[in-house]
């Protein structure tokens, strides 16, 4: 007896693009920043950053509702002054402490299935690249498309190197990725939990709503997209 046939590893032709926050894990960019803030290194630093973050919560909430791009730009300013060394050092710990326990129970199965279907697995997120690299490695993703923080003299400036990965830009980078990698957009899959990723979902031929919010659930029903629950 031999093992049953599978299509094997990623082959050129199509990809599966996964949003991360809310789709594969239950945390989001704020949790990640909170982890860095709470591990600032000095009691005063922790206090300063915590107070500043708490004070900004109402602003973050409003911006998140209004425009994801403005939210990201505003939010990533909080990183200003954090050293690159410290951020990178904390990344692995953060993955073990914060992100790994937050991975949804059936997320790995979905990614494995995409790989068996011959898809290149790509994570696309508005989070910062260094925070998500360990997750990409853990899930066995082939690529990670994420925001990149600008560092000057080893310290974060709080600015993200454009283009900011969010909303419509996610669709643009996916299109460019498929062009440069010789992949078919029409054959490719995209997975997200949020209506803010509507552009990313509509640019591929095979969109899927995962753990969708109310708006995305309504959209998915309207357009007959499959709706998954990986929690």
């Amino acid at each position, binding site marked *: 007896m031999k093992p049953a046939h599978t299509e094997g590893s990623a082959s050129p032709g199509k990809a599966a693009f996964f949003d991360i926050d809310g789709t594969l894990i239950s945390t989001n960019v704020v949790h990640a920043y909170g982890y860095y803030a709470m591990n600032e290194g000095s009691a005063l630093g922790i206090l300063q950053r915590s107070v500043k973050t708490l004070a900004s919560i109402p602003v973050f909430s409003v911006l998140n509702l209004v425009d994801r791009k403005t939210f990201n730009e505003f939010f990533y300013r909080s990183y200003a002054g954090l050293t690159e060394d410290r951020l990178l050092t904390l990344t692995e710990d953060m993955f073990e402490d914060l992100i790994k326990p937050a991975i949804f129970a059936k997320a790995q199965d979905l990614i494995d299935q995409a790989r068996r279907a011959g898809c290149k697995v790509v994570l696309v997120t508005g989070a910062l690249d260094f925070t998500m690299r360990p997750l990409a490695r853990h899930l066995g993703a082939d690529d990670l498309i994420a925001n990149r923080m600008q560092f000057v003299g080893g310290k974060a400036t709080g600015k993200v190197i454009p283009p900011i990965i969010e909303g419509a830009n996610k669709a643009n980078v996916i299109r460019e990725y498929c062009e440069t990698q010789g992949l078919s957009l029409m054959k490719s899959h995209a997975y997200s939990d949020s209506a803010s990723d509507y552009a990313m979902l509509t640019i591929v031929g095979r969109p899927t709503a995962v753990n969708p919010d109310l708006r995305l659930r309504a959209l998915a029903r309207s357009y007959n997209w499959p709706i*998954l629950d*990986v929690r």
Partner: protein
Amino acid sequence: MRPLKTLKKLYDEESHLIITEKGSPPRVLFYGEDFWVEDLPVGTRVITARPPLEGVPNLKAAIRYAINHPEGMDPLHALLKPGMKVTVALDDISLPLPPMKTPDVRQAVLEIVLELLADSGVDDVHLVIANALHRRMTEAEMKRMVGQRIFDEFHPDRYYNHDAEDPEGIVELERTSHNEVVAMNRRAAESDLLIYVNINLVPMDGGHKSVGTGLTNYESLRAHHNPQTIRDTESYMEPGKSALHRSTERIGRVIDKHCKVFHIETTINNRMFEEPVGFLMKKEEDFTELDRLKVQSFKYALSKMPRAMKRKMFFNIFAPYSVTGVFAGATEPTHQRTLEMSWRQYSVPVDGQSDIVIFGMPYVSPYNVNSILNPLLVQVMALGYLFNLNRGVPLVKKGGVIIFTHPCYDEFDPEHHAPYIEFFNRCLTETRDAMKLEHKYEKEFARNPSYVHLYRKGHAYHGAHPFYMWYWGENGRQHVGKVIAAGAENNHVPAIMGWDRTDTLSEAIEEARGFIGRSASISYVKIPPILQTDVRL
């Protein structure tokens, strides 16, 4: 005067046929989750089912007798050794229809078999539902099927659904002489003994089809679940005339070569309904005043209920079937006994085909228990099942007309039928050609990670399943000249399916007569209860 023997033969052959006259009562037809009460034209041949056969007087005794006196194998107790690995596979919720009252016959068989296994020192026992690419059964459905005690003892570690997409859970055996892939549930393949517990509703079920299709994967099913094999299948219900069954037999023989399979097959009668809907089991000629009152009451109540509530109500009506036979042993001789019993219940001899055949379309098919009969399932019921309920010769003439009564609502259950939605809206709007659909889209759907995920982790039919539903109707589509959906509440569903629609049954009959000619012969097949026509040409 004719001798009693001849009279009995005449009665057996003709008591199921009624030719409508001027004073004949109106017929009660299913119209999805509603009833229609309709007068049929004078001269319509009404074909009704045989009365339910008597059940075995003592089910447990019948099961014990069958496993102790099996066909072509040693008795079950003689096959058991302490410490051996045994898997018991069970037919899924697609059988029988409607689901039977508890205790389910599978529970009755399991209670005896599991006790025997325990007494024989066999502890390594798994119960696997042979759902193939059907949806996984829910915990509540699984519990209902085997009873609380067995469920508590085995679920979830040792009582579960087969997973055709588990890369570690499937093994490929050698290929058949026709190079067909033979894939099988790993646990079942690696067991010292596989016991298959079957419910046979129609002669299409059981035999080699049980393990060969129930415990396999997409690659193996492709060998026979394809448009060409369906076109080459003269009769779904007669294994001898079926390319589909020839393929499953080749696959089954490879399985029998590698695994020891002990089949326990059961047949049930056609007592599908009892009070308060007992009138569904009667000919309208036999209705009492009370029956007529019940029909009108139900019709009125249903007209006031939302569709979801009507479904809920119908799916809470369980069938009071009686078990008519229990047969056990090796695959082929056991199934031969099953087929004989099955035909005794369902076969209704009729003389000649008809130009127009009318079916009342019920709310349930094998693929929507506790769910919606969506347009694709209406199609499979009309052209896949009802059209094919015969022994080789369709009741409708080549180029004739099928009329069925159903609202054809554009409703799909996103939990159970997710891939159907895309198939209906994306593929069928492009082409109805089964060959093109298979070539262009089947693999894409079958491999779609979202559909695979929904199948494995949710309760959705596999991505390939909507294609099988379309292929199943292939022979009907090739045979008939026109399909009319009487009472279809919209234009687009019949249009996408390639059917005509009318508001009423009489309009549908008029249109069919216009198509065939005024002298067109008409048959109405009264289902339920289920029957199969034996057409003599």
